[in-house]
């Protein structure tokens, strides 16, 4: 090869190569970076395919998705207290208010005012706390009933989360008959998805009806949260979840995600179900780990029918991280890649995002906008979604 031939710039070459040449030809040109010996190989990862069995169907009843009623009041309180990093127990919200104002709340002082009333005199406890709290009419709460049909036809019932306001959750439980199910020990366990106020602080309402219900919480719960379980009058079997996957019954597993969350909360647990003949269903309280990580973890670790995702329900945050190249339809695009057949979201997915799913033609199950839920574009209070029925 003569050394006096014309040169071609690297940029022009690779741009031209994009249209005219195939990668295989590159090696014959002597490019080191295209020889198989050039670099050490990247590590390969095998899917673990943990077999957690199968069930026949799952039905979710939205007991309450109205975590609070005024977003401006909630966010205003948080920022007045110092922002998203403030310990939630100091925000001076019921039931841990002490009447001293923003950022001066305290678990000890709040619980001290009502401890003797828990769990049997919740009406009085809540009235007492409302007098001390900021924005006393804002609390609502998140909770849903999950009914799993086993392969033998047995129905297993579970609670995911237990809301916030004693008043609101008491009414919501009665509306859906949860109070009676608890009294009759029909509900086999309560899963608290994470320590946030709107998922956990209503615990005394559940304990009032069944103080021995098996309880599962993430091992990221702080001292205040664990103490509150005791102070609520709970007498049952507490499981502090410390394994990535915990099988509950065949076809139902609890997945654990270690992730820092705002207002000094750590970690979330979410549920996965393998529907026989259909595939995987994912259910979350908030999904603070992000739907991307939830789906990815499930795919990497679980065995499920048809090796496909079938349904998803809950708060569908895309990721705890802000994306480095944000798209208008990030969540819609991402969910589309997983090809779910049935999608149920609630208000913390965001109203416009729920609309985007519907406009994109996704199989979103819509709600009825009852009991103070704001829109039919997502599943609201009292609405149901089924997978596999």
């Amino acid at each position, binding site marked *: 090869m003569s050394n006096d*031939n014309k040169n*071609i710039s*690297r*940029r022009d*070459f*690779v741009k031209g*190569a*994009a249209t005219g040449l195939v990668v295989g030809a*590159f090696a014959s*040109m*002597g*490019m*080191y*970076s295209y*020889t*198989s*010996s*050039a*670099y050490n*190989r*990247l*590590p390969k*990862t095998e899917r673990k395919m943990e077999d957690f069995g199968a069930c026949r169907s799952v039905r979710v009843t939205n007991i309450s998705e109205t975590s609070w009623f*005024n*977003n*401006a*009041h909630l*966010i205003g309180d948080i*920022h*007045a207290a110092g*922002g*998203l990093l403030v310990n939630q127990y100091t925000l001076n919200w019921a039931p841990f208010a002490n009447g001293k104002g923003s950022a001066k709340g305290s678990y000890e002082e709040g619980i001290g005012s009502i401890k003797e009333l828990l769990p049997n005199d919740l009406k009085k406890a809540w009235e007492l706390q409302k007098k001390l709290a900021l924005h006393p009419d804002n609390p609502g709460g998140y909770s849903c009933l999950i009914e799993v049909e086993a392969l033998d036809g047995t129905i297993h019932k579970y609670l995911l989360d237990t809301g916030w306001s004693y008043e609101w959750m008491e009414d919501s439980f009665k509306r859906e008959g949860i109070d009676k199910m608890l009294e009759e020990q029909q509900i086999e366990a309560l899963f608290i998805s994470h320590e946030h106020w709107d998922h956990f602080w209503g615990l005394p309402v559940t304990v009032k009806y069944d103080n021995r219900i098996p309880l599962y919480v993430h*091992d990221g*719960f*702080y*001292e205040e949260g664990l103490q509150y379980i005791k102070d609520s009058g709970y007498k049952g079997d507490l499981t502090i979840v*410390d394994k990535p996957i915990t099988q509950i019954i065949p076809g139902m597993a609890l997945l654990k995600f*270690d*992730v*820092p969350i705002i207002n000094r909360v*750590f970690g979330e647990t979410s549920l996965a179900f393998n529907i026989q003949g259909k595939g995987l269903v994912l259910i979350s309280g908030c999904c603070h780990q992000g739907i*991307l*990580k939830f789906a*990815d973890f499930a*795919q*990497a670790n679980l065995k499920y029918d048809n090796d496909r995702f079938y349904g998803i329900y809950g708060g569908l*945050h895309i*990721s705890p*991280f*802000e*994306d*480095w*190249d*944000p798209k*208008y*339809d*990030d969540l819609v695009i991402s969910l589309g*890649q997983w090809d779910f057949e049935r999608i149920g979201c609630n208000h913390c997915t*965001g109203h416009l*995002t729920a609309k985007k799913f519907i406009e994109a033609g996704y199989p979103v199950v819509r709600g009825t906008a009852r009991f103070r839920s704001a829109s039919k574009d997502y599943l609201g209070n009292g609405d149901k979604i089924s997978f596999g029925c």
Partner: protein
Amino acid sequence: MQLTAVLPARRAANRQVDLPEMLTNCLLAANHYREFKRLVGWKGMAVCPRAPRAWTLRIRSRAGVFGLAAEDARRDGQGQHATLGLYYFPAPEEPLLETMSLAASFASTQPDYLETVRRFTAMGEWAAPFRMGTLEVSLAPEEDGLTLLCRALDRKLSIARDGVATPDGKWVIWPGEAEENFPAHEIARDFFLVLAASVTRSLEEPPCRAGQSKTPGHGLFYDCAGNRSPLDDGISLVTDLLCWGDRETLAALASLSLARCDVTAGMENRHTLPAPLDDALFWKTHDLRELSRDEAYAPAFDSRPGLIVLSGFLGAGKTTFLNQLLEYYAARDELVAIIQNEIGQTGVDGKLLEGDESIVELDEGCVCCTLVGNLSKGIEQLKARFNPKVIVLESTGLANPFNILNELETLRPLVRLDSITTLVDAENAPGLLSDHEIARDQVAAADTILLNKCDLVDEAERERLRSTLRELNNRAVLVETEHGAVNPGYLYDADPFEQRAGLLPCMPNGTRHTHADEDFTTHRLAFPSALDRDRLMEALDRLPDAVFRLKGIVHLSNEPQPAVVQYVCGRHELSPLGDDFDQDGFLVAIGRDMDLAVLEEMLGADA
């Protein structure tokens, strides 16, 4: 050492810790602080989907994307250890690609390059040319000591002895020229410093020790047959090492690494370290309050809410865009407050916004005719009540944003100007821009132009419109959308350390044309009774050209939902309000010398 921000508070003693996840949790927890995000220039992070565990992320100091891949993990008597691969994927036009391998250059020209980057660990060999170095993290058995090190060549060099030629005989790389020759350590260090600062922030303590070592490294000399041999050319393998926690524990954990360091220092003598290790943020981010007192970091601690001035002629799609802004920030637990001053006695958009009480309507109808005192007062009200992160000033389509610019100096103690955003309706813009000086000023004043409703015009018309807009303003970011569909994260909360193009200087005479100079008037009609849909549509079809804009809420007979009426330049639309509305129906018309007889005759006419 306090690990509860990044590991479960109640974890079992001696439990296997997922160290790569702990590090990404450090990044996540640290970036909950807006100030930290600004200090380090954090741009975002993503999980690699359906791929071996990895993350991609961007930071201010580099135009491209870093990749972080979990590799191996192990335990021994010294504690738990994990190795991560660090990659850097240059932006497609980044000059660095000229110094990287041909495989890297080729990869970056592919249309799906960035999508491939997002899942780089699923791509096998594809990612290898982009590897910069290795990170190692170790945690002491009692979890009282943590070390983090970054190891990379100061130059990654490979030389093509025989050159690389195209089949038709042109040299791409001359014989003896380098195929790769780039400063891998310098690139890797940019990310390492951000990661280290996040560890310090999350542990709430600075490292007790930092060190650097250099050992001989080598490049590669290869021929076209694939034979290769090491090339000694002054290349070093550089290792930067940081230790947090208990010194005695770390003495054991890091003894081998520290022994090899050419230089080590603690907080007390860190000035003896080579730059930039001597003064890096990882020594400081444990105490953001202390940092806020340092003038050099002041922009990161600016707590004034960002002000977005939202401008654009009527009908350009501001309401839709506003709803997206509200939801974008609400999903991030941040509050947007809106100052709305639509002409007319009822702010119709207030019914379409879902922001609770975060809407303040100025008492005056039009901000451009309002004394600045009212605007300041509105902003003070909002800040006192809601502590918003962003304030959106929705200026009416007839307002001239240059007049707002004139007043911004007065507002400076209250807000930081983030953007003047002008929405332009692609279909109606040519007529509006040629007929109305206000419309031209709105484009000229913008930092961001959203060319909306692009689905209503063809490509040739869009091209002509882009040229027109560029003639009026060649410095604004121009984004084309349909239905105002753009992610606000793409547009706003600019990095305060990045140089931004300055706004055009204001005209010395200070005052620009307003709607009053063009004889626009407004007229409101109330409709106590429900209207017939067909009759209303027919009336809208018959409105004279003098009516420029019409909007309102009306009750329709035989329909349970009230309807929102939107009319602009001959186009009209009725859509369900989707909410309760207990008041009389109304329409607000804006135009010049309007004859509204076709609407007035519907008054008193029951369906």
